[in-house]
């Protein structure tokens, strides 16, 4: 299963190869994602003062050192950051921590994973005397065991050639009579169950706790008319080729689709599920407290966050960033205030309690 971060890296390279962005932009964007890699594959901390960041893509190192590493090193003499692109799934973090030889400092994870890891005593609590809660736009972006330097959203997309009256919300998404055709959902419970719950008429403001049996049943209702994606390029393919006429996909892919189809495929911010790109610190990380300082620096700098948005579309999380976004890009920014207000921020706490169970049941439902 591909994560959002992996997909961003893939998307960046795709744009670069098609000549849509230059090398500098590519590197800047990758650096903002933390998606650069040490030559020779897996990075290892060569000295005690190296910080190992772990991401989901397998790419070059230079951009990161220019974009995040250099400013951070300038502030903290002698501290370098190195990149590892192993893909820090919760399972991998667990096996590393339990083996007693943690070599990772800061891992690109998710809200639910951070809570699952934290409760299992596999992640370090974020030290909010170092990391500033005021550096993010909302409480959902600064959690107990992780904080988010970027955001992304799961939005409704539809093929406007198929529907003269555009669908507006998840209730329309579930309305196969008014909007016939195949639906596209991610093969994961997060965001899908929120959409199902909203389609049942629950107000976005009081979405949680989700009614698990009801929303799972709702997913089951359209199972026969649905396909499920595991990675971003797959979601794009399904929409572009017309296999699906309406879908819930990451807003970064929605932007690409809208641009490539000259607006035939459109995205709707309304009722989108806004999610934090949470970084976690594995327990017993070699860099110790310095990892907290690196994370603090990533949250505190709005400019690189805007650079990332320009390049790929990931939303900034720093409250000062939205104002710095060029006008043409504002409508693609998930955390632009007008866009953010019509979306729902995913509740990491609820998912921390329910992810394992809900996802297992979701798999049962869609493979039923």
């Amino acid at each position, binding site marked *: 299963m591909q994560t959002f971060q992996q997909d961003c890296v893939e998307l960046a390279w795709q744009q670069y190869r098609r000549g849509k962005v230059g090398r500098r932009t590519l590197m800047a964007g990758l650096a903002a994602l933390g998606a650069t890699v040490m030559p020779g594959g897996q990075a290892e901390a060569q000295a005690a003062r190296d910080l190992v960041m772990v991401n989901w893509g397998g790419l070059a190192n230079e951009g990161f050192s220019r974009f995040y590493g250099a400013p951070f090193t300038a502030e903290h003499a002698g501290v370098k950051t190195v990149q590892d692109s192993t893909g820090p*799934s919760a*399972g*991998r973090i667990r096996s590393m921590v339990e083996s007693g030889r943690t070599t990772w400092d800061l891992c690109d994870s998710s809200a639910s994973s951070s809570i699952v890891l934290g409760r299992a005593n596999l992640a370090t609590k974020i030290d909010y005397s170092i990391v500033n809660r005021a550096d993010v736009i909302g409480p959902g972006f600064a959690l107990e065991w992780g904080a988010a330097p970027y955001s992304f959203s799961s939005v409704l997309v539809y093929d406007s050639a198929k529907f003269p009256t555009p669908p507006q919300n998840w209730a329309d998404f579930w309305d196969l009579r008014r909007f016939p055709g195949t639906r596209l959902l991610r093969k994961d419970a997060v965001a899908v169950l929120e959409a199902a719950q909203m389609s049942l008429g629950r107000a976005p403001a009081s979405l949680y706790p989700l009614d698990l049996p009801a929303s799972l049943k709702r997913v089951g209702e359209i199972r026969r008319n649905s396909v499920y994606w595991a990675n971003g390029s797959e979601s794009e393919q399904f929409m572009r080729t017309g296999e699906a006429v309406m879908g819930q996909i990451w807003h970064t892919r929605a932007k690409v689709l809208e641009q490539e189809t000259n607006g035939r495929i459109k995205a709707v911010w309304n009722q989108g599920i806004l999610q934090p790109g949470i970084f976690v610190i594995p327990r017993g990380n070699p860099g110790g407290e310095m990892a907290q300082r690196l994370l603090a620096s990533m949250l505190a700098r709005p400019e690189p966050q805007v650079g990332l948005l320009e390049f790929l579309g990931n939303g900034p999380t720093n409250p000062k960033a939205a104002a710095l976004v060029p006008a043409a890009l504002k409508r693609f920014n998930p955390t632009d205030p007008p866009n953010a207000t019509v979306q729902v921020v995913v509740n990491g706490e609820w998912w921390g309690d329910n992810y394992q169970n809900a996802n297992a049941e979701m798999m049962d439902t869609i493979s039923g």
Partner: protein
Amino acid sequence: MRRDLGWWALLLPAFLMMTVLYIAPIVQVLAISVTEPQLGLGNYDRLLTNAGVQRVILTTLRIGLLTTGIALLLGYALAYVIALARPAAQRWWLLGVLLPLWISVLVRAFAWVTLLRRQGLVNQGLQASGLIDAPLPLVWNEFGVVVGMVHYMVPYAVLPMLASMREIDSRLLAAARGLGASRGTVFGRVFLPLSLPGVVAAGVLVFIFSLGFYITPAILGGGKTLMAAEWIKLQILDLVRWGMGAMLATVLVAAILATLAVFSRVVDLRRLFGARA
């Protein structure tokens, strides 16, 4: 006796290496199924109580059996043609069978997507010829998965059957014909029984492979077909329920060993896995 002991001693280093580097780590992982979340058989209890696990196992078995059946049928026909072809033609046939083996499983899965999807070649062709009005659902379901898996498994079905067909003495067939048997009778009473060991061997091989398929169902299943391998991955990497993942892995290993044990009484497994020419 003493000399025998010497031979065994020579084997000892290899045996120890296998145990330490291969068997021990596997056992260690499989043991998680009884130690997590607490000591006991709680995870195995889920086999009886959890409908989700049961469905995954049933789906895996169903697709495995279906794939095995179809691959054996196609493979048998192919092996039959190859066995009876002239030597020069045989080489070309064999090349044709083996060629797909060298193409990545990923590439082949995506090729099937291109052929079978709604606007794929097959549906477009059928629509253009007026045979169907609306595209058929050929992929993103179990049908697509079975097509992809059969395509992958046919060479594995052909090779053991071909080997056993080549051992059939062609004079027996000629003798049967000479004694007045029809072509059908020769095939049904002489050729088929003599080739059966190859069929069983191929069946075991294909079935065992099919149980562990991961990429093909993930791509061609449209997310709706969940087989054992993907389920294990989900438990281990994403849900961090190692006990459950290890439980199904253990069940899978046990099922494979049991299949081998049963069929080792019927066919010579050493030949199947290439230990004897």
